[in-house]
């Protein structure tokens, strides 16, 4: 027991004191935040900033709908009253012009405008023909035709114009038609489980996704750390001195536990840091010069984001999946480390283990979209994908307790098998130098020890 502690302590202290650990612990969240949220934030931003400028409306409807559409485009793009932000000031004034023409002249005019757009004299043009009023079909041709933000705005403008036009046609008062055409809906979904309301369905799925992805990242990061650690002991030949003092199994266990403890430390720091910043967000943001009114709005927005409710059973199951999943993969990574003689060989030999791991993660999206499907059920019962898929399922939809227990039971058995197998490969492999073993030799190693 004392020796196991010595191994765990060495693994833990050497890694936690390492410069890289400190660097990753501090900058890891910044980096992950950047790669997850920046693209999303940027696309939202570009949608919000999208402004349709310099657009020609070709109106061949003969009803004057073209003017209505132009009005709506101008209205959507006009800065909100009182919006004095830099973005609003920078935005170019929207220039929408309407050309009214006969259907017969439309084709020729379209050709001419295409040439104008090609020569960059015009950004694009909207074509409204006689069918538009009846069916709502219209065409936009332009250099920015692939821009989702601008497309959405044109569509909204067109829809509002057509709705108000048709309402007025059937005798509705102009201002009422206008109000109706601006009506918007916003749907919030909430999950109901056996225990009743369980918070927003969206929040549950996000929480499950974060959980699965965190485990995946943890396995990759710490599994590789174990592999490198074993490989280091092998290549520096320090392994022989160590196994003359402790059983290889103890060394293996100490490594897995020590590196696991490093991971827990890192998570604890991240969670504690995250909680701290969340609790201090108001004072932090106002100290950075944020507008108090906007803050209050953000505050009420955040309050409406209900955290998914987690039962004690789910909580325990989630922790078990995390720990067992880590143990399963960590022992496999250790076995790979003991099999090979260099990092290059390790990169190859680790492929089968990585494929097991990735086979879980590639189904994250389908499972998230449909947590009750057969695929989701199967993948959450198979031991190698269960640690990733089951937590996702459990937070996205209720899962029968029997299935959770069955999955956990299978995972426990798989863990025992992985540890048994790895310990045997480890015991022989640690002192084997030279050629990487073939599958048959590997079989002999396992029988031998």
């Amino acid at each position, binding site marked *: 027991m004392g020796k196991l502690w010595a191994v765990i302590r060495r693994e833990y202290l050497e890694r936690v004191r390492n410069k890289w650990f400190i660097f990753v612990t501090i900058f890891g969240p910044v980096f992950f935040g950047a790669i997850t949220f920046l693209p999303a934030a940027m696309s939202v931003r570009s949608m919000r900033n999208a402004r349709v400028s310099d657009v020609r409306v070709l109106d061949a409807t003969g009803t004057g709908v073209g003017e209505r559409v132009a009005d709506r485009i101008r209205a959507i793009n006009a800065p909100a009253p009182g919006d004095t932000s830099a973005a609003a000031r920078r935005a170019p004034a929207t220039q929408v012009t309407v050309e009214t023409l006969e259907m017969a002249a439309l084709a020729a005019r379209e050709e001419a405008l295409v040439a104008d757009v090609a020569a960059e004299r015009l950004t694009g043009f909207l074509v409204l023909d006689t069918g538009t009023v009846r069916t709502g079909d219209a065409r936009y041709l332009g250099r920015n035709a692939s821009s989702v933000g601008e497309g959405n705005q044109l569509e909204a403008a067109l829809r509002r114009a057509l709705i108000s036009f048709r309402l007025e046609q059937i005798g509705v008062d102009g201002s009422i038609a206008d109000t109706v055409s601006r009506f918007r809906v916003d749907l919030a979904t909430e999950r109901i489980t056996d225990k009743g309301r369980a918070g927003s369905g969206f929040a549950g799925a996000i929480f499950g996704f974060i959980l699965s992805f965190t485990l995946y990242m943890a396995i990759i990061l710490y599994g590789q750390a174990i592999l490198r650690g074993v490989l280091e002991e092998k290549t520096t030949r*320090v392994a022989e*001195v160590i196994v*003359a003092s402790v059983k290889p199994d103890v060394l293996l266990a100490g490594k897995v536990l020590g590196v696991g403890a490093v991971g827990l430390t890192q998570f604890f720091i991240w969670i504690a840091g995250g909680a701290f910043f969340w609790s201090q967000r108001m004072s932090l943001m106002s100290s950075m010069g944020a507008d108090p009114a906007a803050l209050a709005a953000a505050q009420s927005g955040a309050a409406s984001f209900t955290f998914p409710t987690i039962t004690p059973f789910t909580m325990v199951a989630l922790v078990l999946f995390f720990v067992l999943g880590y143990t399963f993969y960590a022992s496999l990574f250790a076995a790979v480390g003991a099999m090979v003689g260099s990092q290059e060989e390790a990169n190859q030999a680790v492929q089968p283990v990585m494929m097991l791991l990735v086979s879980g993660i590639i189904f994250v999206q389908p499972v998230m979209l449909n947590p009750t499907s057969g695929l989701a059920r199967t993948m959450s019962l198979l031991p190698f994908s269960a640690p990733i898929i089951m937590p996702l399922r459990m937070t996205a939809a209720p899962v029968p307790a029997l299935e959770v227990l069955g999955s956990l039971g299978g995972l426990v058995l798989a863990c025992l098998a992985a540890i048994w197998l790895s310990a045997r490969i480890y015991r022989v492999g640690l002192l084997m130098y030279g050629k990487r073993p073939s599958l048959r030799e590997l079989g002999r190693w396992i029988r031998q020890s």
Partner: protein
Amino acid sequence: MTDLALEIRGVSKRYAAHVAVESLSLAVPKGTVYGLLGPNGAGKTTTIRMILNIIAPDTGAITLLGRPNTDAAVLDRLGYLPEERGLYKKMAVRDVLRFLGELKGVPRGELDHRIDGWLERMSLRTAEKDWSKQKVEELSRGMQQKVQFIGTLLHDPELVILDEPFSGLDPINAQALKDTVVELRQRGKTVIFSTHLMDNAERLCDAVCIIAKGQKVLDGAVAAVKAENAGRTVALGLEGGMSPAVHAVLGDRALVARADDHNRFVEVELAAGADPQQLLQRVLATGARIERFERVQPSLHQIFLQRVGATGVEEGMSGHG
């Protein structure tokens, strides 16, 4: 039983393609320096790994200090220096030594005191420079060897096993190692080391075991081994070197089994039944002037060549170290 530091009884180890060790038996009394000799690939490292229970023998039993070697507690009383040496490169010297000490069950409170003593003794901690905070990789190769050696002895083991300890050592460290072996013996410890360098073994060992191709060739106290193999070796010194006529005499297989020219003298092993007097007369008859003609005890090297034969040499035997 208990006066033996190590007893190996009928131990064999086979690998898929070959037999590494075959029914090997030997006994090492406490308080001796014991040499395990043999050419490379003879099975020395396999034997040592089996003694340390790093690998399990197919058959046979090994007793260490009166306990079976599968008893984990007995391993704490052993110090081991493997042939392939290495330490955690990124760790500080003191941390590596602490870890190795803890693995051998040295109480944590006592560790630093012992480490300091050893570092000072090996001049890794002096008034000017303390290497203990340095990372292992920042040390010179010679200093790393010293650290490894401290790690082997830090827990004051009763039995020290050194696999090819002299290989790769610079002369200063080789001297320090030899001094330490002698001192361990004086303190009543047992030292077992393997080597293919017969000169080292001859100088240091109380007893030896020669193995080749996984089998024991001979074993016993060095004096006894030499006495058993004595009486057939003659040192022959000639003024002005060897003439072709003398060369012809030494080539007579009826008289001489083997002649090893050491330049200043020739170590002659007589053929079975041959008489030294006859050799003396034949050499005088060539007209050579004899400086030295002496019946000598054979060196371990000679005994080795005699008993293991040329095949041992081909397999990597090197007697001149």
